[in-house]
């Protein structure tokens, strides 16, 4: 029923609202309303309302004891003045950058090779995807042993075999973030490989035939046919990866807790600290302000993603 209550979304809702609502009810029928109730209640309470509340909270001083008070942009200025904010932005950007350098080319190379295989393609895609279904908490806790800084740690044992190391991995500010990127790439690359494999199937074979008539080698075919044909998909996965990396949380939270020396403090970790790890009670206003800033920044990418995929589905 709540849909009829907030009639503001319907244009031309005026003083004649009551009879109009009755007319709608009789046309749509009670059964239609009944089918809409779960969606309206759940989305209303747990999606639409919290979204609006995020914006409201960002300009309020909220605690769970007294009534919220209007503070204008004070939450935003307090976040911007926090020295941890600049550190968190820099760390998150650094993570996205490293994840891009390491995590972007690997799935492309794997997918191109796998798509040419005559046997074992199913086995290879299953192996590539396997890490994606392992719960992230399990992956992180497992990789903490791999990253053990002692000479008998798993990775340091490997390095010892070839006469290198031991490396400190998560223990120093310089190597903590790259270590996290390695684990995150392992955990996420498989999903991207599957997207590329599907995209490779949609490359028209005539293009390869035509390239061969012109005497193109295998390398030239990859460079001048395959990659340009994948351009759109590559751009979309790039955007999705940026959106995902900007919300980095579980890995630094469980690997390092943001340390050492704040070198893995991410934006979402900072939001969590503001709201839930404050000994003076949660500063929900600052947390909301930082969330809104990041959402606005990511909104640009998300809009680009939707615009791109929308124009595909209508053109093809």
């Amino acid at each position: 029923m709540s849909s009829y209550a907030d009639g503001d979304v319907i244009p031309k809702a005026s003083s004649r609202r009551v009879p109009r609502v009755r007319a709608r009810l009789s046309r749509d029928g009670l059964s239609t309303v009944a089918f809409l109730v779960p969606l309206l209640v759940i989305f209303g309470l747990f999606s639409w309302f919290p979204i609006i509340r995020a914006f409201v909270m960002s300009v309020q001083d909220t605690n769970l004891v007294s009534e919220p008070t209007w503070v204008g942009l004070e939450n935003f200025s307090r976040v911007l003045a926090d020295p941890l904010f600049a550190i968190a932005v820099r760390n998150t950007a650094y993570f996205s950058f490293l994840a891009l350098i390491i995590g972007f080319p690997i799935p492309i190379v794997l997918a191109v090779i796998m798509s040419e295989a005559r046997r074992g393609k199913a086995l290879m895609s299953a192996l590539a995807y396997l890490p994606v279904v392992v719960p992230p908490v399990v992956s992180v806790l497992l990789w903490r042993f791999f990253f053990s800084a002692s000479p008998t740690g798993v990775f340091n044992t490997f390095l010892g075999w070839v006469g290198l190391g031991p490396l400190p991995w998560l223990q120093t500010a310089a190597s903590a973030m790259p270590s996290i990127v390695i684990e995150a790439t392992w955990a996420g690359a498989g999903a991207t490989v599957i997207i590329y494999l599907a995209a490779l199937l949609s490359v028209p074979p005539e293009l390869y035939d035509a390239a061969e008539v012109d005497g193109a080698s295998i390398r030239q075919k990859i460079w001048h046919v395959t990659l340009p044909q994948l351009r759109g998909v590559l751009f979309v996965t790039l955007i999705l990866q940026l959106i995902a990396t900007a919300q980095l949380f579980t890995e630094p939270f469980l690997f390092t807790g943001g340390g050492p020396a704040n070198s893995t403090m991410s934006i979402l970790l900072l939001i969590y600290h503001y709201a839930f790890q404050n000994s003076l009670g949660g500063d929900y206003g600052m947390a909301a302000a930082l969330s809104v800033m990041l959402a606005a920044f990511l909104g640009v990418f998300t809009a680009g993603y939707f615009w791109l995929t929308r124009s595909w589905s209508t053109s093809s």
Partner: protein
Amino acid sequence: MRLPSIRRGPRRRTQDQADRGIVSAADWRRGRIRWAMRIIHGATLLFLLLVGLGPLLWMVKSSITPTQDTLRLPMALWPHGFDIGQLATAWSRTHIDRYLLNTIWIAAGSWLVQIVVATTGGYALSVLKPRFHRVLSGLVLATLFVPTLVLLVPLYLTVVNVPLLHLRLVDTFWAVWLPAGASAFNVVVIKRFFDNLPREIFDAARVDGAGPFQLFWRIVLPMSRPILGVVSVFAVIATWKDYLWPLLVLRNPNLQPLSVRLPTLQPTTDLGVFIAALTISSLIPIALFLIFQRFFLRGPGLSGALKG
């Protein structure tokens, strides 16, 4: 985040039709290229075995290796024999059995709420079409634009005190179950599937006297089994992977799922027993993946949904 088209477009070729790729038939006949390709593929397969399966095999191995051996010689295969007992210790003394049951409860409830909301909502928006169904669909779609992290704090305050109803859901499974239902992705995917069902069947059913409820229960749902299967498997795996949200809303250790308990158990648990607990925690998602591989590996769109 991705919006897949479940039905394959006429343009997309299936696996068997892909008669050629980058390497032409003429290339394949040349010995040098054939051998180079074999070596490349062998190396790729080896790489994927090592990287994709290797860490998980190490986890299984270490869960039945005595702790001291894992610490001193992590790569050695059972220098001093097995310790199968670690699995039993993890199961009973570390109470992995209880946390596994919590996880299953949380996943089952989240699944049910998601399916109910997405099927009834998708049916109303796609088939019954009330007056402002376009506005509503737009409002549902719009939530896809909002990154989940924006909702973290306001959603937390919402389950602390649900507006209008004034309920406190914290430390009940409802705090995880109900917000799980607000998945725009599910609604959009299921609505698109319903949009593609043949309208003639609906008309025929109406002529035969079927009301909206019978149409939904007897015709639309049975025809939607494939998409419901896909959405269900993804819903269960996504719940299994969830960490931050249950950490926030389930503070009572007796209610927490595996993902929340494991990090707190680690400092007080023997290493071998702990790795055994990790192994037990991964069994169900991996089994689901192996059984329903085609859902994950064939649909290019849905696999992206798990990342966010």
